[in-house]
């Protein structure tokens, strides 16, 4: 049996100390006075080699060789090897939450640097140490706005990720919260409809930037309108895009969240990912999640601690800002190291490449007969096209040709059955994009 160090001799000696002569007697003393379960559906243990061989076989049954144009909030970006090298250091990954600051300055300083990175990208004052993912982060932002405004209504654009929206619907189902979902449409009046829905009862308006269709919008008018009604403005955003786009903090958003998978974290079939959240100084003490702060030790030496902990469950219990305890700390470290490797110019280069390649892909694909553009020219690295038939069927045919051609929107938007959402990252080459267009033409 691996991973257990006690030998039979050790066990005998320890039994003597605790006054037992068998494990069954030990259980009895511990108040477990019934027989063990048979567990007869389980197999015997395997060696490391056998487990590795089995899991290699399972890995081979996943088709990661498809040329990937699938995004919808989760993107296939380049990850430098240096990132995994650092997060693979067991001083980081085998540590617990840094509650003992003297024994955890490494993790603590990394969290502080991560928080600083998120603030610099979003244009806000304070970020937390991470939440589970983009969807839970957005729900937490909505709850936070409710605490601040003491209102129970949230106005949310349908151009926010449907994956996030259905999570918010699930979490809200037993709560006294009124969710008003405002149709996105393809015209420019979507923002007007959103503003019209904000009233004196609204806790917050929730939008996405760029939105789920890849469209970039200016939000100053909406945030100002929300503030005039006493509501907060909440935005979920794509961190890579923030290298080139106006930061949400400058557009008047009070709480900014997002899915951090795109900054250095592998797709890994849905997780672990990274929910990030930032807010203004005014609302710092209403924010959920751990926060690392800078202070000094007894000798006046600089160092870091977890701070403002009275917001959290281990102190405030039922009236905490959130129930979150474990977060995605190692993913926050991953994002931090990625952002350091990319650096100021590197992240801009990645963002520009994504946008240029997406624009190229769109113009190539729009050359195909029967394919029409949906939405305007202001998009980041993802765009929508309309096909002559059911997009889901087309995507099925494209898989047979070796492409994950995009995400058919009909799954979440019944009126967009023929529409396909295509994402392009810096990984995709001109040849792959041309091949996608050729294959698409062939299957249509």
């Amino acid at each position: 049996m691996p991973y257990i160090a006690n030998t039979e001799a050790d066990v005998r000696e320890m039994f003597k100390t605790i006054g037992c002569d068998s494990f069954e007697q030990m259980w009895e003393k511990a108040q477990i006075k019934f027989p063990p379960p048979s567990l007869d559906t389980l197999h015997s243990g395997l060696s490391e080699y056998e487990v590795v061989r089995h899991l290699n076989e399972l890995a081979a049954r996943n088709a990661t060789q498809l040329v990937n144009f699938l995004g919808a909030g989760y993107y296939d970006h380049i990850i430098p090897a240096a990132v995994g090298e650092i997060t693979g250091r067991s001083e980081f990954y085998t540590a617990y939450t840094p509650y003992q600051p003297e024994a955890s300055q490494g993790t603590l300083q990394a969290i502080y640097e991560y928080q600083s990175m998120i603030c610099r990208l979003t244009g806000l004052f304070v970020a937390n140490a991470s939440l589970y993912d983009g969807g839970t982060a957005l729900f937490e932002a909505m709850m936070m706005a409710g605490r601040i405004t003491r209102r129970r209504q949230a106005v949310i654009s349908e151009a926010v990720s449907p994956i996030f929206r259905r999570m918010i619907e699930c979490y809200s189902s037993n709560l006294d919260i009124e969710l008003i979902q405002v149709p996105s449409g393809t015209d420019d009046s979507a923002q007007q409809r959103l503003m019209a829905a904000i009233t004196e009862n609204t806790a917050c308006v929730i939008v996405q930037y760029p939105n789920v269709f890849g469209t970039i919008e200016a939000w100053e008018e909406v945030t100002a309108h929300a503030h005039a009604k006493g509501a907060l403005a909440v935005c979920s955003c794509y961190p890579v895009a923030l290298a080139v786009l106006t930061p949400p903090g400058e557009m008047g958003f009070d709480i900014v969240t997002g899915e951090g998978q795109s900054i250095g974290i592998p797709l890994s079939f849905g997780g672990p990912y990274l929910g990030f959240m930032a807010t203004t100084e005014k609302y710092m003490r209403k924010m959920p999640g751990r926060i690392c702060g800078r202070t000094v030790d007894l000798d006046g030496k600089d160092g870091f601690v977890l701070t403002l902990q009275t917001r959290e469950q281990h102190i405030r219990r039922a009236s905490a800002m959130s129930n979150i305890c474990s977060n995605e700390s190692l993913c926050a470290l991953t994002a931090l190291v990625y952002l350091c490797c990319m650096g100021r110019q590197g992240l801009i280069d990645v963002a520009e490449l994504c946008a240029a390649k997406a624009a190229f892909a769109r113009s190539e694909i729009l050359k195909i007969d029967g394919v029409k553009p949906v939405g305007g020219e202001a998009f980041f690295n993802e765009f929508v096209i309309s096909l002559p038939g059911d997009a889901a069927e087309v995507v099925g045919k494209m898989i047979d040709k070796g492409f994950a051609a995009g995400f058919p929107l009909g799954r979440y938007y019944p009126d967009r059955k023929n529409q396909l959402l295509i994402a392009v990252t810096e990984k995709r080459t001109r040849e792959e994009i041309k091949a996608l267009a050729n294959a698409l033409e062939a299957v249509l």
Partner: protein
Amino acid sequence: MKLIFSISRSGRRGSSIPKADVPEMNAIPQRFRRKKSAELPEVSEQEVIRHFTALSRKNMGVDTNFYPLGSCTMKYNPKFHERIAALPGFAELHPLLPQLRHGGALTQGALAVIYEAERILSELLGFSACTMQPLAGAHGELAGVMLIAAYHKACKDDKRKVMLIPDAAHGTNPASAAVAGFDTVEIASDSEGNVDLEDLKKHLGPEVAGLMLTCPNTLGLFDRNVKEICRLVHEAGGLCYCDGANFNAIIGRVRPGDLGFDVMHVNLHKTFSTPHGGGGPGSGPVGVAEKLVPYLPVSRVTKRSDGTYALEYDYPDSIGYIAPFYGNFGIILRAYAYMLTLGREGFRRVSENAVLNANYIRCRLAPYYDQKYDRFSMHECVFSATRQVAKGVHALDIAKALIDRGYHPPTIYFPLIVPEALMIEPTETESKDTIDSFIEAMIEIAKMTETNPEQIQQAPVTTPVKRMDETRAARTPVVADLG
């Protein structure tokens, strides 16, 4: 140590990115562009590596030090798990792929991992099914109490708005119940550290949705009345939630489903040996008895008669979507590897040795430290530094003195019902030799408390920083370097 921002030099690069191979189209209109670039650091790859390597050396981890942190199960994390999680066939797999037509056939390996891990876990917990989706322990608690709410709603029993929670519980229990919309009521513990049955009976009634009980409890004790507690709650029409944070104590030996619990979460980052990551990511699958199966979150992974796996969404009573996809897959994958290695016999050897190691520490330290509940313990033992406090040495001081001696401290000041608590959880992976050395250090500290308490009060002195000014951190928060 300097912040990464302060070693930044304009023009330095830490990565190479492919050159543009498409015409520059400048797709993003000028009016949407940020006026000033985000001030990310400009550092070389070597500087990145050196900075973070230096930071890592300011940490204690399971791989560097004995880490007997109570209620956290800081066991060894096998190294091959990390390699498996990095296999491109798993790491590069897009979560939306199986949702595309013909896409399910392309993700059979990943779906198999989720399905088979769920099946093994269900057997170990004694439940009909599990959801692997919850992303951490507290997320599992939230999912679990939402299942309880869905059950009562389906029974048209709308009055059940109260969740009972023992006073020894982790803070996440009342917090999770509150996030799910419940009011919480605290139940007292009796003089032996069990749930006070009289207090429980007093609070049961038609408004009670359920009870959240940690089993074994947070004092490291197996509540001798656990079956009776479940019976009483059921009799009153409530459901029983088991917080499985301490599942390492009973894995392979006791199945909570057999005790009468209806729903529970386990922390894969505790019992199933996935790394804690400096605070996460975790994974908190939830197991349920038959009557709660219809309410499990969607999607669910099923196995067809031809042996292939599929994602199913057609569960009309489901509570809905609690995670973006199928859970923290990378964590589930590591836990699956661990389950396969342990096998039927291995699980029970885990709990046997975890309980043995904890009781060995308890018996050897009993002459030196007080115990509020002098009982045979499970996988962790709780001392109370009351004897040391008389000399001016608090649990916090003992914790810091342990750091100087090369040990990560136990959990301190929890459970809240034990004054000056020191909660020690050695886990099964530590050797008797390591445990003996730790015991010697604890005894030495106890003795020094008598002779030289000042030295304990001044600890730690060997660390990169001494005790931190936490009051200053909270009064005038400095929480980011904005550049």
